[in-house]
């Protein structure tokens, strides 16, 4: 039981679980906001895995304290990497959401099937024009 619930299994298992949950959202959902959120969940899982890679049992956080006795410290590099990765994820997510808002405004849908049909329709075809009208004249303003 202890074996199974060791901190390592919890961290790595949790990370893998987050990745799989996020992947489910990405592959099985049609709504693009959900898909984007799925990507965010995957990133969280990957970040967790990265941090877990620097774990050492009983080690301190990598901040030196002149008063404290210097013991082993955890690896500071993954922590820095994760900081960077989080910010990158935020930036991409924000850009994706902006695009999604704009698309929704123009076409009135974020359904991936409908959007694929629009983007693959030959220019000027009835399909693309119909979708434009449905979205209303919002984007001329």
């Amino acid at each position, binding site marked *: 039981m202890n074996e199974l619930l060791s901190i390592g299994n919890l961290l790595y298992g949790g990370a893998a679980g987050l990745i799989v949950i996020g992947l489910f959202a990405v592959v099985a959902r049609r709504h693009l906001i959900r898909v984007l959120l799925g990507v965010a969940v995957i990133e969280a899982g990957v970040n967790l895995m990265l941090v877990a890679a620097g774990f050492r049992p009983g080690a301190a956080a990598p901040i030196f304290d002149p008063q404290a006795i210097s013991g082993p410290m955890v690896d500071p590099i993954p922590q820095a990497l994760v900081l960077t990765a989080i910010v990158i994820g935020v930036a*991409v997510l924000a850009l*994706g959401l902006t695009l999604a808002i704009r698309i929704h405004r123009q076409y009135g849908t974020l359904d991936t099937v409908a959007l694929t049909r629009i983007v693959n329709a030959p220019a000027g075809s009835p399909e693309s024009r119909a979708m434009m009208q449905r979205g209303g004249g919002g984007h001329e303003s």
Partner: protein
Amino acid sequence: MNPEILIALPLLAAFLLPAARRIDASVGIWWGPLVVLANLVIAAMAWWKVQLIGPQSIALGGFAAPLGIELRADHLGLSAAVLLNLAVLLLWPRETPDKARVSTILLVLTGAGCGLAMSADLFNLYVFFELVAVATYGLAAANGKGEALIASLRYLILGALGSALALLGIALVYAKTGTLNLTELGGMSEALSGPAGIGALVLMVVGFGVKAELFPLNNWVPEVYAHTESRVSALMAGIISKLGILVLLRLIAEVFGGSPGLEFLLWVGVLGVVTGELAAYGAKDMRRVLAYSSIGQMGLVAVALALGGETGFIAALILMLNHLLVKPALFLIADAWPGSLKALAGKGRARPLGAVLFVLLALSLIGVPPLPGFWGKYLLLDAIFTNVTEGAGLLVGLILAATVVEAAYFFRIAARLFGSGEAAEESKIPGLPAVAALFVIAFLALSVQTGRVGDYLKEVVHGLQPQELRMAQSDFPDPAASVNGKGERL
């Protein structure tokens, strides 16, 4: 001149541009090209320095390699930097509504691309790769058309998912080895020969393959190229897809040479060639044909990379170089024609120069001697027959069958161009675009000087792997030998 400036200067300029634009609106127009031009000069100087004194390793911030981030000022990195700056300068988009923001994005793209070309640190590669990716999401949406936005969002989702997987791969590598420096990782092939290392390679191929247009991570390619300005399509198909390959090239040359995971890249490449060429055969408008053909070409590059060895790498480089010059020119030439293939009839008689050059460039993609594309294909086949022990016939057969399909659709277009149609009335169509002419001239120079370029590419590949070249099918070299090799590196 320090090669780091190649990264710093465009980023600095990009940071300052939004503020400068508020002082004087015209800054948004000339600022970007000017800075890229300056960057090009610096890149050329740095490239020349490498020619004189050989490849250099740069410890960023003065922290020596494994601790800090290492930049490689080597033949490959600086050649790519020069080409990137040149391509961005030539293919600066014109028809965008928001010039200042596009300038900012392109400046970032330039700086990040230079960083990507030189970085020798796994995570730093990832950061620059993401930077390039975000910049291209922006570029893809730059013209503000609804379809372009959709294409950009779909591209972003694929890209973000791929990046997450690549990061997972990097995490695996780090957890296994505790280092991110490529040189040091190259000496740890023992640790990376287990499932974690192989799996990491697969994940990174998936992640970086999104940008490199590898099958099946490339669904964004036809959508994006069909709806962006032709210059942006040319830029993305021409040089940015090569940056993804460049990352893979460095990884394979320095760390994962001979890894069983390369078989994945091999099949991804073959399927890319086959599906890309077939889809191009089925496509009905020019932009899509060119986009699909790009997928096929990148598939060839991937096959060459996966085979590795000197021949494989040179084949990959020459195929990339060929595609880099040919595809932008094709996009630009085709820009003056109607998009639908049906409407092309007789257009070649109205614009014979453009049409003839279109055919010539297509011939190089198909691989007709003595054009550079032929040498790429020849070396690729050479690498296959040399390195693949089983199934070489199948591989060659698939690739060559795809090439026949490629010739079929390009010459269906050519026949239509020179076929009968109402050509006479449209003689007012402008001639060859100047930028396309530049690409064509560069292409012709490459065709004439293939021998010299080949010699240089050999040097590039040797600069990539100073220690003994690892053959694709051989086992990992023993660690001691590669440590020795590492000592002499750079």
